[in-house]
């Protein structure tokens, strides 16, 4: 006997506990099975690209903070690198090391948040999330030491960073580096062998290598599918060429691989941080000759960097004035959404949120 069923269309979001902000999906279910998903975005659109056209190069730094608000240091870094290339500024070595430290810390924080919320989407009652946020809290405190703000940092300036790290920063960083491996071990004990997590995430939301590349998906999602593409390694910006680290690669490209790749990348970031501390030398943090009002010559520049979410780049066009003529953001989490529909078709309702969480999408960056 066959039962006549009717597909149900439902609005998931924009206000929903696990859409990570104001994301909306028009989902059609047949019973528990997803037969169609249409992402609807734009609820957090603030027109940053247009705003940037009316602000000076330094003022735009504050706008970049607010794009990916979980990883504002890497946003700053990407923007600053682009401005430096555009204006031909050579940054001070100490400033570069400092911003590498900052961006690696930010990567740990962002991955911690991503994994925590992924497990939260799985339905754990906030416990792993709070463990992750506890570690992120220490990083945010270090950011407060560095630049006085925890999330909207605006720490970087063309030519380096705006101020040297205070004395109390280095002991705090060392303490963090000593503690963090144990915390990651804890998280792995809690989740990596947990049978419920395994059966919920394995072989769900699989992305093949070719699909991934073809859809311009980058970052941990791409690496979880097995493509060795890390811009820190393949196209080293700043001083990443002086640093050795390994890139974790998944093999299947399902939610569990993405989860594990992020955990492994946190460990690699710790390694990078240690090397940064070894390599950093005293000196000025930004060259004296860089003016407050940068006036780059006519031209354009695009410097992609490896942000926690993927390839992040600012395409800046200058007409010789004090503010960018055009500022385009290549936002990784925006482009990573391309294949969401293909990933979840045929899965259960519950998997939709897990898959979405494993993409680590940040709505501030998607809508800009």
């Amino acid at each position, binding site marked *: 006997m066959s039962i006549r069923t009717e597909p149900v269309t439902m609005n998931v979001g924009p206000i929903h506990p696990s859409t990570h902000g104001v994301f909306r999906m028009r989902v059609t279910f047949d019973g528990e099975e997803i037969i169609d998903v249409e992402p609807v*975005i734009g609820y957090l*659109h603030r027109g940053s690209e247009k705003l940037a056209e009316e602000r000076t190069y330094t003022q735009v730094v504050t706008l970049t903070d607010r794009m990916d608000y979980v990883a504002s240091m890497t946003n700053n870094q990407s923007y600053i690198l682009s401005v430096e290339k555009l204006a031909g500024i050579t940054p001070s070595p100490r400033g570069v090391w400092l911003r590498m430290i900052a961006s690696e810390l930010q990567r740990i924080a962002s991955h911690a948040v991503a994994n925590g919320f992924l497990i939260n989407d799985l339905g754990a009652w906030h416990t792993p999330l709070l463990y992750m946020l506890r570690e992120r809290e220490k990083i945010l405190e270090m950011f407060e030491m560095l630049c006085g703000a925890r999330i909207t940092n605006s720490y970087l300036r063309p030519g380096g960073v705006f101020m040297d790290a205070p004395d109390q920063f280095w002991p705090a960083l060392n303490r963090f580096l000593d503690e963090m491996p144990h915390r990651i071990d804890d998280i792995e004990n809690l989740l990596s062998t947990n049978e419920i997590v395994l059966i919920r995430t394995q072989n769900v939301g699989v992305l093949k290598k070719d699909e991934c590349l073809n859809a*311009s998906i980058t970052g941990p999602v791409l690496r979880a599918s097995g*493509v060795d593409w890390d811009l820190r390694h393949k196209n*080293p910006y700043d001083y990443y060429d002086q640093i050795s680290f390994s890139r974790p690669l998944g093999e299947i490209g399902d939610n569990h691989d993405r989860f594990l790749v992020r955990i492994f990348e946190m460990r690699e970031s710790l390694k990078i941080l240690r090397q940064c501390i070894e390599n950093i030398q005293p000196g000025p943090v930004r060259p004296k000759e860089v003016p407050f009002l940068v006036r780059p010559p006519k031209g354009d520049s*695009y410097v992609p960097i490896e942000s926690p979410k993927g390839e992040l*780049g600012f*395409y800046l*066009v200058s007409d010789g004035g004090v503010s960018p003529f055009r500022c385009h953001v290549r936002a990784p989490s925006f482009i990573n959404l*391309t294949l969401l529909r293909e990933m979840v078709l045929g899965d259960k309702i519950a998997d939709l949120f897990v898959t979405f969480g494993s993409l680590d999408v940040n709505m501030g960056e998607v809508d800009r």
Partner: protein
Amino acid sequence: MTKVFSGEMIRELIDDLEPESVVSTNNDSVHIKSESALKIFNELKNKENCQFDLLSSLTAVDYIDRFEMVYHLTSTVHNHSLVIKLICGEGRKEPKVSSVVSIWKGADLQEREVWDLMGITFENHPNLKRLLLWEEFPGHPLRKDYLR
């Protein structure tokens, strides 16, 4: 380190694929004819020594007298990248280019965004609707003549 193609190198490369489609050569990029764009991109993606399989970024710039599309292509196989620009239509009237979604699926959302904010029509795009703004929104805000 990613090998970045200079303008001259890109021109040589494209001349091999499709002669006389390069309009002008800049320092680090080339302008190509928009008619032959789709063919060139197809070649760039599939040819053995190019294999630009990753469409890094796709955007449009309003240069007041013209609209320009900018494509940043990267190859994860050979680890090299290039920049290709093309001028959309003539002047400011109804800028139009052909969509590259059939070549790179990743262009899907980016082209919709460009259509939404810059108002450039992409031919043969499967689902060219507004993305960030709502359907009834007047105008395209990233254009320089958009009135506040």
